[in-house]
């Protein structure tokens, strides 16, 4: 029958499905994506490693400084210090990076994005240890100085992620929003930011991992954290101690990375 047209085209192969990469249809949401297995394996592996480490410390013959430092209480308090450094810096980084990224993608200020990112990249070439030491000379060796150094170091990934994410939003969708009568603020809130979220979050996770790693350097300037186990271990030539510190900080970085991935997975808007 050639009567009018019923709507059953089904899924036309090669039809434009904007925003969604191929294979991300319903099947994609039902099946486990390759990256998802890691969300389960990674924390389990980290916990297993921590368990082994605890067992080793408990049964091994530990002497001298190592025995004084490798008590549960010290390890926990150093870990909390490390996390505190990371999280305080992360909050400041988000408060600076995201609004700045938004600002640098608005029509009027868009042209500033290139130069700002260039300068930020230039700054990122500075060695973290140099930055930490210079700031300590200027501001004194203490916790807050370490936070300042971490913030300076962690802003770029968040800023770059925000800018890249927002720039990656299909301009036709922005115009569609405007064409429907959304205000610029509503377009930002309801269209641009949700669509930029995946890229922004991956920038945030990069920054977090970078912060955990760089926070080890805080130990050099009395900033605290797990780096102290490592520096003490190196100074005393105590292999057990420095290996313990290295292992703990590596496991912490992997846990933070995992937490970031979980957030990315959960916060990704449906439909993307």
């Amino acid at each position, binding site marked *: 029958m050639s009567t009018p047209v019923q709507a059953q085209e089904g899924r036309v192969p090669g039809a434009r499905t904007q925003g969604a990469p191929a294979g991300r249809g319903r099947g994609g949401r039902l099946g486990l994506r*390759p990256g998802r297995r*890691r969300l389960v394996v990674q924390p389990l592996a980290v916990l297993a490693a921590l368990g082994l480490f605890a067992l080793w410390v408990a049964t091994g013959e530990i002497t001298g400084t190592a025995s004084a430092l490798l008590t549960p209480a010290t390890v926990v308090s150093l870990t909390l210090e490390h996390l505190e450094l990371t999280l305080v810096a992360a909050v400041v980084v988000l408060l600076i990076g995201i609004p700045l990224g938004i600002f640098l993608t608005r029509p009027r200020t868009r042209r500033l994005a290139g130069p700002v990112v260039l300068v930020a990249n*230039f700054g*990122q*070439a*500075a*060695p*973290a*240890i*140099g*930055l930490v*030491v*210079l700031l*300590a*000379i200027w501001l004194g*060796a203490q916790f807050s100085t370490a936070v300042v150094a971490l913030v300076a170091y962690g802003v770029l990934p968040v800023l770059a992620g925000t800018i890249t994410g927002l720039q990656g939003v299909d301009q036709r969708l922005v115009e569609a929003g405007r064409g429907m009568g959304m205000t610029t603020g509503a377009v930002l809130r309801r269209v641009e930011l949700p669509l930029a979220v995946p890229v922004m979050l991956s920038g945030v996770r990069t920054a977090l*991992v970078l912060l*955990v*790693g*760089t926070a*080890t*350097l805080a130990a*050099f*300037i009395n900033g605290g954290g797990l*780096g102290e186990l*490592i*520096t003490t*271990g*190196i100074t005393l*030539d105590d*292999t057990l101690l*420095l*290996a313990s*510190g*290295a*292992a703990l*900080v*590596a496991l912490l*970085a*992997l846990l933070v*990375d995992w937490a970031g991935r979980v957030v990315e997975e959960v916060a990704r808007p449906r439909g993307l």
Partner: protein
Amino acid sequence: MDLWDFVAERREQIAFQAFQHVSLVVQSVLLATALGVALGVVCHRRAWARGLAATVSSVGLTLPALAVIAVVYGATGQGVTAAVSAVTLYALLVIWRNAVVGLSGVDGQLLEAARGLGMGATRRLLRVQLPLAWPVILSGVRVSTQMVMGIAAIAAYVTGPGLGGLIFTGLTRLGGAGALESALTGTVLVVLLALVLDLLLVLLGRATTSRGIRA
């Protein structure tokens, strides 16, 4: 003390440290490039091997530099070995991942065309895949070079060679004379040399990338 005087007084020693730093980075990156491309060639064909490369590289890059340096140093007691190992490892992780991405990103139709022309596996790799994947690999080399310039500076803590020594001198003299000059000289030189290396890599990229695929 004037910064200029500081540098002028120690210019030979500083120049030597700068040379050491660059030499460490360049040699390690060269080694990492060779290893990374070889591993990439081995890994890019199978999905599980690609997954492995991606996972190992991403986990490895999560590890804090000081932790890796400390472990190698603890195992060998060797500052220079620790520095070279850590620097090579980080560069390798980045380059390996990019090699896998670049090689597996080559259009399958082109490879089929190459087979249709009668090219064998080796020739396909050398004439088609590597040239097309080269920009991606080279960008991995650039990123890793920037990154390990800073990691090499940290390695100075375990008596590794290079400009990190100046920074740690500043740290030990914290509050004393010359601390600022020392740390500043070390930091600024690392930044400048990193930029010079990056520029050289850009030029290398221009010279070695086929004109047909240059962006």
